[in-house]
């Protein structure tokens, strides 16, 4: 297994060239705020130190695209309640384990005896269901359009194979409604968007046309390597420089403009839109969440078990919502780094390594002016 094919997108020399072009594309007196929508971008930016290569007046704002961070407390409580049911094997991605519910986490529930297992894909959960036919296996599905197709395909397979002891607790969400909600927010000041490349492999670039059309902001769909991100930022700055405003696709090697017809078709078959879904920090957003369609209702965990559905308000001190909107930087939150740390998180942005706060705490604390001596 070799990752040779990505090397050119991590080349430091190309990075320096792009950094130079970015410097040439900005007006010295002007401040630029660019939002990277996807948590995967946030992670890459910190991992590779991409922001070190940007001029002082180009600021990156971390957007709402971390799938773990947007899950509200009540939804975590619902998961814990199901995990504690008799005979249940509860499966989820590793990042979900430490997200705080109103009283505890899935990790705590596991230590107290619930059978909770970390998986890397919904197919792993289906495999567990097949090997333990006497148990009920629940998969806690989260994520944007990136992960929804694999949940959908797993459900299709479960249905085709007639597997009765498998169900999905669906917390999938879609990316366009929260972006629209953000753009409607009066305190938001952004100059452009680095578009979510992984989501776009499924939905394509077309659904983002409303951003330049209705809100006058450029969008560049971007890959996840550091060179991709720098190039996308440059493309946004060039649009501003040229007075253009459109959706451009930096990630053409993967993303077709129309997306993946096959993935969209299977999603349409397996899911339907919820009327409302609650987002951590952003509140209820209409038509932003997915649930299982009528045809797959038998596989819906929420139909099989009594789920509390108690709404829990976000903790008062936590400003995850403003961080998600890009209104404040993580360190501007009242509890950042003191009461809220990666080992004892209050807000979800501090839990996942893709969360804006955890990424800043882990990687970004070292302020860029400060030298190592």
């Amino acid at each position, binding site marked *: *297994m*070799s*990752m*040779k094919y990505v090397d050119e997108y*991590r080349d*430091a020399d190309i*990075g*320096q060239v792009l950094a130079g072009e970015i410097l040439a594309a900005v007006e010295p007196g002007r*401040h630029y705020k660019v939002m990277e929508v996807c948590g995967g971008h946030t992670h890459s930016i*910190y*991992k*590779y*130190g*991409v*922001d*070190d*290569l940007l001029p*002082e*007046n180009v*600021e990156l704002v971390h957007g709402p695209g971390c799938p773990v961070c947007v899950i509200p407390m009540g939804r975590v409580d619902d998961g814990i309640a199901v995990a504690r049911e008799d005979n249940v094997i509860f499966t989820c991605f*590793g990042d979900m*384990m*430490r997200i705080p519910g109103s009283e505890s986490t899935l*990790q*705590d529930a*596991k*230590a*107290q005896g619930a059978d909770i297992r970390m*998986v*890397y894909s919904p197919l*792993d959960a289906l495999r567990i269901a097949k090997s333990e036919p006497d148990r009920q296996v629940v998969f806690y599905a989260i994520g944007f359009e990136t992960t929804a197709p694999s949940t959908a395909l797993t459900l299709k397979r479960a249905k085709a194979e007639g597997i009765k002891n498998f169900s999905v607790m669906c917390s999938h969400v879609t990316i366009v409604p929260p972006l629209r909600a953000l753009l409607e927010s009066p305190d938001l000041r952004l100059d452009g968007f680095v578009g979510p490349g992984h989501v776009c492999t499924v939905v394509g670039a077309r659904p983002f046309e409303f951003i330049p059309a209705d809100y006058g902001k450029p969008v560049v769909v971007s890959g996840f390597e*550091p060179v991709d991100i720098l190039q996308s930022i440059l493309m946004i700055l060039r649009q501003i420089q040229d007075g253009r405003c459109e959706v451009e696709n930096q990630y053409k090697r993967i993303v077709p403009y129309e997306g993946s017809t096959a993935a969209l078709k299977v999603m349409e078959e397996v899911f339907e839109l919820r009327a409302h879904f609650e987002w951590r920090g952003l509140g209820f957003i209409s038509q932003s969440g997915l649930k299982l369609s009528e045809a797959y209702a038998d596989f819906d965990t929420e139909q099989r078990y009594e789920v509390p559905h108690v709404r829990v308000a976000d903790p008062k001190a936590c400003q995850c919502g403003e961080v998600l909107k890009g209104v404040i*930087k993580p*360190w*501007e939150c009242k509890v*950042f*780094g*003191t009461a809220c*740390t*990666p*080992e004892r998180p209050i807000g979800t942005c501090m839990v996942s*390594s893709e969360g804006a706060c955890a990424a800043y*705490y*882990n*990687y*970004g*604390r*070292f*302020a*860029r002016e*400060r030298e*190592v*001596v």
Partner: protein
Amino acid sequence: MADQPAVADRETRILGIIEKTRAKPSKFREKQITMAHGAGGKATQGLIEGLLVPAFDNPTLSAMADAGAVEVDGVELAMTTDSFVVRPLRFPGGSIGDLAVNGTVNDLAMAGARPLALTLSLVLEEGLPSDALRAEVEAIAAAAEAADVEIVAGDTKVVERGHADGMYVCTSGVGQRDPRAALAPDALEPGDRILVSGSIGEHGTAIMLARGEFDLDAEIESDTRPLWPAVDGLLEAAGPQLRCLRDATRGGVASVLNELARASRVAMIVNEGNVPVQPAVAGACELLGIDPMYVANEGKLVAFVAPEAADEALEALRAVPGCERATDIGEVKTDPPGMVLVQTAFGGKRVMDQLVGDPLPRIC
């Protein structure tokens, strides 16, 4: 932001608070043990610094070396103990028996002690096939011979089915401290070079793949091996200019660097591009979303050496079989104390913090 000095001040102040919090001894506050307490990161540190060290309060234990120093009538000994709970019992490159010997002799070696003898405790699960046990006993005998130690005492217990994953193994070891060694976790000085004895992340990755939970196929073998020959070579080349040694087991190289940056109140900078990682390990870790710097090794050490002795130490290390890929990966600095920073291959800088949570299954 350059145009907002008040805001910048606030950021600096908050960063200061975080740094101060990091430097304090960790507390043990959780209501129950979770898997994170076994992962070698912050929770493990809290368990050790917050519960165990204060309870047994003595200077030898508080020094937090891999093995404790004991003096008997002028003879300088080192003692250590370790338990092994890995699943599966056998994996590419080794087995629980190899780990049980190498893990303990390596802890002695990291204290600058030549391993002399081990004791062995076996906790066996009802129903364990005798052939599986026989294979591990043979592996233990072979590993002990390779490491030049004798198993001088032992114990066996059997527990009901379902109470152990086949078998758990505990070994304790005694060694004689080498007079050439002057090693201490708080001995690091700015300017010291940071060496690793070979490519990293192999053991943890091999175990994850051997568990068969991922649809990944890659030829990655555990690096389990005894490290005394490497330590012997380093002591011969650098003597007292060898400041400290750590084997990068649970929590990986990142955890070793963070632990010693805190213990010596120094900063460290690691050149990411110089860190040796096999392409198969890098590929598997990338797919699993794990940084190889945090992945366990069972036959790799990190050595901190005074700059004037670093070249000779590296040469000596490379002459030891299994350490041919030894590399200088970075330097000890002064400021910011307690922090490990990475110069990324892409040209940026970031913090490499301690591990939080439990990203990995039981690996040793």
